């Protein structure tokens, strides 16, 4: 009983870590670029797949992939921003949503053609194999690693944005890009780097997820919808808000899986409906 409950809570915490990482990237991109990056799920999938391919074809191990894959996918993101996304700045944000939706379809379709829909498995790195028996439950080491690293990365992002000079530029650009540019800051460059960073964060989450979930072309699209709901619930205004909401909803999902499993797929959306009823602006949101 306790064992099953704590097991589901751990799964919830892990899912929540991914929700937090992904909604954080989404919020950072939206803040500066005014673009809802629908391709975020596909880029998360890309991260997992590139890590799998790197191991399969190039023999690159998990630890190198954790650094190299986000860099590579982030660079792809910057190229996309420079060639395509840039042309939509100043238009209705709906166009950015539609454009990145198209990108998501393209990416998923390409991988589905190449690899089918069956999952590929990615081995847990040697160093993180095994786990600890806590008496009431078995705690796999890799899962603990995921939770700790995700929280550390989230906190690192929060620190960078709220407490450093670069973060100050970012916040200033979110508030008033024209004024920031008038002060001599290269706003287009910051935009490109921000998009690249957000995408790299998604790819990082993808690499982290590869040993836990099956690596499939469609792994991103299911997650992105939950992350959208997280964003609606938490509001995109606050970095800390999206981290807390992501982790919290993961836990709620885990609890639901324990008490009434069939509802676990929809519970996040039900919470979204309740939040819309009670606090239309979102838990941490400022404007409508």
């Amino acid at each position, binding site marked *: 009983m306790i064992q099953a409950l704590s097991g589901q809570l751990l799964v919830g915490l892990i899912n929540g870590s991914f929700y937090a990482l992904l909604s954080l990237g989404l919020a950072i991109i939206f803040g500066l670029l005014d673009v*809802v990056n629908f391709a975020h799920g596909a880029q998360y999938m890309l991260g997992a797949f590139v890590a799998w391919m790197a191991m399969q074809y190039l023999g690159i191990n998990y630890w190198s992939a954790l650094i190299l894959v986000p860099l590579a996918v982030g660079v792809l993101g910057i190229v996309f921003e420079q060639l*395509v996304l840039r*042309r*939509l700045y100043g*238009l209705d*944000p*709906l*166009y950015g*949503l*539609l*454009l990145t*939706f*198209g*990108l*998501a*379809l*393209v*990416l*998923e*379709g*390409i991988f*589905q*053609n190449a690899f089918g829909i069956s999952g590929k498995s990615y081995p847990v790195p040697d160093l993180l194999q095994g786990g600890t028996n806590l008496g009431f439950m078995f705690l796999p080491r890799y899962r603990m690693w995921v939770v700790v690293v995700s929280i550390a990365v989230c906190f690192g992002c929060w620190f960078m944005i709220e407490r450093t000079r670069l973060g100050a530029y970012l916040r200033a650009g979110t508030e008033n890009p024209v004024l920031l540019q008038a002060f001599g800051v290269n706003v287009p460059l910051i935009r490109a780097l921000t998009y690249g960073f957000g995408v790299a964060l998604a790819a990082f989450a993808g690499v982290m997820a590869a040993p836990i979930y099956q690596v499939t072309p469609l792994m991103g*699209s299911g997650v992105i*919808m939950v992350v*959208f*709901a997280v*964003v*609606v619930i938490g509001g995109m205004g606050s970095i800390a808000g999206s981290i807390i909401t992501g982790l919290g909803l993961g836990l709620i999902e885990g609890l639901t899986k324990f008490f009434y499993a*069939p509802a676990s*797929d*929809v519970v*996040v*959306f*039900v919470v*979204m*409906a309740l939040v*819309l*009823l009670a606090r*239309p*602006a979102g838990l941490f949101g400022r404007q*409508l």
Partner: protein
Amino acid sequence: MIAAGFNRAQWGYAVLVVVGLAAPFYVYPVFAMNVLCLALFASAFNLLLGYSGLLSFGHAAFLGAGGYVTLEVIRAWRLPIELAIIVGTVVAVLLGIIFGALAIRRSGIYFAMITLGFAQVVYFLVLQMPWTGGEDGLQGVSRGKLLGIVNLQGNLAMYYFVYAVFLAGFWIIHRTIHSPFGHVLRAIRENEPRAISLGYDVDRYKLLAFVISAGLSGLAGSMKALVVQSANLSDVHWHRSGAVVLMTLLGGMGTTLGPSVGALIVAALENYLASYGSWIAVITGGVFIACVLAFRRGIVGEIRALVKRSF
């Protein structure tokens, strides 16, 4: 006498109505019916996106709900077809009221994300409920007889029934757009704070537009399910919600005929590419990107702009 009163646009519509009457003799009737259902779906969607500025990313929920409910009430309750269509549409209207009332509490991109989330709930319900057939969907439901007289098992009879429903739905949308209500919707799209300051209860207008759109989408779904005599998960999947956005964008949002043109192109594309499997997603995505980048006004919108410039 009547002809003398026609202006150029009305002549255009008259020609299109005749083309629609002749269509089943020149193209495969099931394909033509499918196009009509999708055209009605996209036109209903356009009422929301093109005229109210609300991007719903969950319209597949209404299409799918209409289809599933219509087939189920025929199968389980033995309802006659016309009643079954009404029940399917009413269910879509009710869903529209619930989803709409919640979703209009936020605007812009949040509205899109919320509708997407609600549509996922419908998807999971359809996947898990006992009567929807899960992965297999509902299959092999007979079309039956219209009003107990006209046998709809023949494709030609069914085509003209679908065509009549399409024209009625299209007429409702046309009337809505050109009514004072439609003008208020456009005012809200252009400048919401101003509409509020003029004393319009903006939320009620948005909700009504959402419910009309949802109901007509449900009607389109009912008809579509009857045409192919089946409903499956792809009808409630978010790919379908994306496809209707594409139809509207490609044809021209905020134009009367655009969504139908877009529906025709997307349906043809899906038909001809059916054997290429998942390349459809790649091509659909590519068309999406091209539309957003190169011609945001869509085909009909671009033609209209061209005509305006040259005359």
